[in-house]
C-alpha cells in the first residue's frame, strides 16, 4: 500500500502527444479513478504507472522510490485487464494460488488467503472449476481475485468491467467499494464510464487529449466542475448548456433563457462582480435533474413547451424549448406531460453553473 506519484509525465508516440505534462498523486490506500473518453491518455498514463511503457519525460514514484525505470514485476504491482487472465489448464483455486506462490510460507497460509479472496469476490463455489466451465462474469471475478490476493504495492485495473453485460457490470461495480475496503490497498482504476468512476472512486482524475482537466472527489467534480468539458462528461444525463445574456437590474442578476429569464443567486452575483465588463459570451450549465416542471405558472420560472419525451424506464427525459433555447429535464414517469404542452420550468438555483463560453471555464 503505497503513495503513488506521477510527476510531469509526457509521452509522445511518433507524432502523437498522448500525455502532456500530467502530474497525479494517489495517497496510500485510496481508490483513484482515471477517467476520460477514448484517446484521452488515461490508458497510457496507467501503463506508465504500471511500468508497461516508459514516459518520454517525467517520473513515477512509489512512496519515495523512483520506479520509472523498473519493469512491472520489479514494481510489485497487481493488474486486472479488460479480459480475464486465467490459465485454462488450472482450476480456479490454483489460478489464484499461483499468484501468491512465491509469497506464501505454508500450504495453510496459501489456503487461507485464497479462500479469503474467493469469499470477497463471492466465487467460493467455483474454486474447483476450470475456465471452460465458468461464465465470463465469474472469470473476471477470478481475475480480480488473482490480483487482490497478492501483497502488491499498487493494484491497477484497466477498464475491468467494460466487457461485461450491463447486469454483470452493475453487480460487480457495487461490490468494488466493499472489495477496496477489505483489501485496503492503493487502487488505480481506469474507465471511460463516468458512472463507474462516480460510484466507486474516492478521487477522480479526468483526462482529455492528454491533459489533466480536474482532480477531486466525486462530489467536488460533480458539484464544482472546473470547466465545460468536466461538466459535460460527468453526470448522466448530460448537463444542459444554455446560451444566455446576463443583466444586472436593481442589484439583481438575471440570466436570459430563451424568451424569458431567471434570477441568479447571490453567490453567482458575487462571482461575476469582478467581470463587470465581460458579461458577454456566457452559458448556463444546468443538470437535467436540477430542473423541475410544473403545469401551473410558478414565479421565477421559464415558460416553455414540451418538444419531446424520452422514456428511461422509471423516469422521463423531457426536452423543453423556449425561444431558441432548448434543454432537458428529468422527471418522474408518472408525471402527466405530453408533447406540445405548455409548462413552466424551475431551475434549482444552487446548482446552476455560469460558464465563460470562450475560455470554457466554469465561473461558478
Amino acid at each position, binding site marked *: 500500500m503505497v503513495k503513488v506519484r506521477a510527476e510531469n509525465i509526457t509521452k509522445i508516440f511518433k507524432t502523437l502527444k498522448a500525455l502532456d505534462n500530467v502530474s497525479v498523486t494517489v495517497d496510500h490506500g485510496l481508490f483513484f479513478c482515471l477517467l476520460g473518453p477514448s484517446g484521452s491518455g488515461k490508458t497510457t498514463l496507467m501503463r506508465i504507472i504500471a511500468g508497461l511503457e516508459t514516459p518520454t519525460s517525467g517520473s513515477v514514484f512509489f512512496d519515495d522510490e523512483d520506479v520509472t525505470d523498473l519493469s512491472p514485476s520489479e514494481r510489485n504491482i497487481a493488474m486486472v485487464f479488460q479480459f480475464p487472465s486465467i490459465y485454462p489448464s488450472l482450476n480456479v483455486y490454483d489460478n489464484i494460488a499461483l499468484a501468491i506462490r512465491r509469497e506464501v510460507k505454508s500450504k495453510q497460509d496459501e489456503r487461507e488467503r485464497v479462500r479469503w479472496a474467493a469469499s470477497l469476490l463471492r466465487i467460493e463455489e467455483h474454486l474447483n472449476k476450470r475456465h471452460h466451465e465458468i461464465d465470463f462474469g465469474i472469470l473476471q471475478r477470478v481475475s480480480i481475485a488473482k490480483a487482490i490476493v497478492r501483497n502488491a504495492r499498487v493494484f491497477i485495473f484497466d477498464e475491468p468491467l467494460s466487457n461485461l453485460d450491463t447486469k454483470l457490470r452493475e453487480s460487480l461495480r457495487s461490490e468494488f467499494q466493499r472489495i477496496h475496503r477489505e483489501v485496503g490497498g492503493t487502487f488505480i482504476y481506469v474507465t471511460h*464510464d463516468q458512472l463507474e468512476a462516480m460510484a466507486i472512486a474516492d478521487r477522480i482524475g479526468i483526462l482529455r487529449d492528454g491533459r489533466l482537466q480536474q482532480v477531486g472527489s466525486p462530489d467536488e467534480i460533480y458539484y464544482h466542475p472546473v470547466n465545460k468539458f468536466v461538466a459535460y462528461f460527468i453526470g*448522466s444525463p448530460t448537463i444542459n448548456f444554455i446560451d444566455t445574456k446576463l443583466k444586472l437590474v436593481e442589484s439583481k442578476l438575471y440570466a436570459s433563457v430563451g424568451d424569458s429569464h431567471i434570477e441568479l443567486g447571490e453567490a453567482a452575483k458575487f462571482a461575476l462582480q469582478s467581470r463587470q465588463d465581460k458579461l458577454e459570451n456566457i452559458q448556463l450549465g444546468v443538470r437535467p435533474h436540477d430542473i423541475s416542471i410544473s403545469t401551473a405558472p410558478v414565479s421565477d420560472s421559464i415558460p416553455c413547451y414540451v418538444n419531446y419525451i424520452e422514456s428511461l424506464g*422509471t423516469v422521463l427525459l423531457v426536452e423543453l424549448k423556449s425561444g431558441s433555447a432548448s434543454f432537458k429535464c428529468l422527471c418522474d414517469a408518472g408525471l402527466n406531460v405530453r408533447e406540445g404542452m405548455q409548462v413552466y420550468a424551475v431551475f434549482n438555483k444552487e446548482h446552476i453553473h455560469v460558464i465563460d463560453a470562450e475560455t470554457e471555464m466554469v465561473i461558478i
Partner: protein
Amino acid sequence: MTRVEIRGLKKSFGPVQALKGINLEVESGALVALLGPTGAGKTTLLKCIAGVEEPDAGDILFDGQSVLGTPPWRRDVAMFFQTYALYPHMSVYDNIAYPLKERKWGREDIDKSVKAVAEKLRIAHLLDRKDPSTLSGGEMQRVALARTLVRNPRVFLLDEPISNLDAKLREEMRTEFKRLHRELKQTIIYATPDFLEAFAVAEKVAVIKDGVILQYDTPINLMRRPKNRFVATFIGSPTINIMRGIVRRQAHGWEFSTTSLKIQLGNIGASSKLSDGSEVELAIRPQDIVLEAPKNSNSFKAKILAAERLGYETIVTLSLGDVELKAVSKGMRPYRYGDEVTINIPGDRVILFDVASGEAMY
C-alpha cells in the same frame, strides 16, 4: 412504411436452436426494439428478415405478402450489422454509395444522397478516405450507419448500432436515433441488449431470450407488469430485488415472510392465485423502496453496505438480516457504509412470481 409480420419462425444451426418459434407484428412506420441478452437470437432474427439466413419453418410477411421466396438483394431492406461489415477495399464514399450503385442510380443522384447522409451524420470530411480501417470506432459506426440510411427501403434493421461506442457517445446517439426515426418515418427494428437504449428509442419492446419472445409491450408495461421473472430482472437498473419466502393469509390480508422480514402485501391482484403457506418469490424495484421512511407497516431497519453516488441518484445496497436489497434515492445522498436507515417497502408495488414457472402473478 411497411408492416412486418413474423409467424412461427424457427431456425437452427446444427444442434443449436437459435429461434424456437417467433411471432411478432410490427406496425408500419413503427420503431420496435428487440431486447435480449447475447445469444438470445436477435441477430439471427434480423438476418432472417433481411434474407441472408433462411428460416427452417415459419413465415415473414411484408404488408401481408410473404417474402421468403425473395432473395435478400431484392427484398428492399437495409441492415446495419453489429460488426459494421464495411467493405475494406473501398473508400468511405464508395462504401456508402454501394447500395445505390447496385440499384443502378444515376451518378448525380448517388452523389447527392451520399453527401446528404454524410452531412447529417457529420462524416462529410471522411468521404475521401481510401481505407476504412484507419477510422476510429465511432467514425466506422457512422459510416456503416450512413450506408444503411442512404437508401429508403421498406424496412430498416439495426443490429446493436451503438453497443461498441463509449458510454457518453452512446447516450448522445440514443437521442439521435429517436430524432432520426421521426424524420424517416420508416419501419425500424432495433436490436440491443441494453434495456435503457431500447426504452429510450422504441415505442414497443419485444423481450427475447433463447429464441423465444417473452413479452412484447410498451416500456411502462414492461416495467410495471413484467410477465415473468426474466423480464423483471432483465429490465431495470439497478436489477429488481427478488426474495424468496412464504405467503400466509392473515386477518388483514396476505403476508409474505422470510427469515428476516415480514411484508404485508397490498392490493396487487395476485390474491386469487395464492395458496396459504406456499413458497413464492417477491420482487420490488429499487426505485420503489422508500428510504428514511416514517415508521409504519412494512418499515424495516437496514444497514448500509455500499452507496454509489451517481449524481442524479444514489444506489444504496442495504442489508436486512440475511437479505440484501438495493434501493435508489434521488440526488447525491451522504450515506456511508455502516449507517443505519429505516426503509419502507410499499405493499402495493411488489410483484409476486411463481417459484417453479417464473410466471408473474397478477
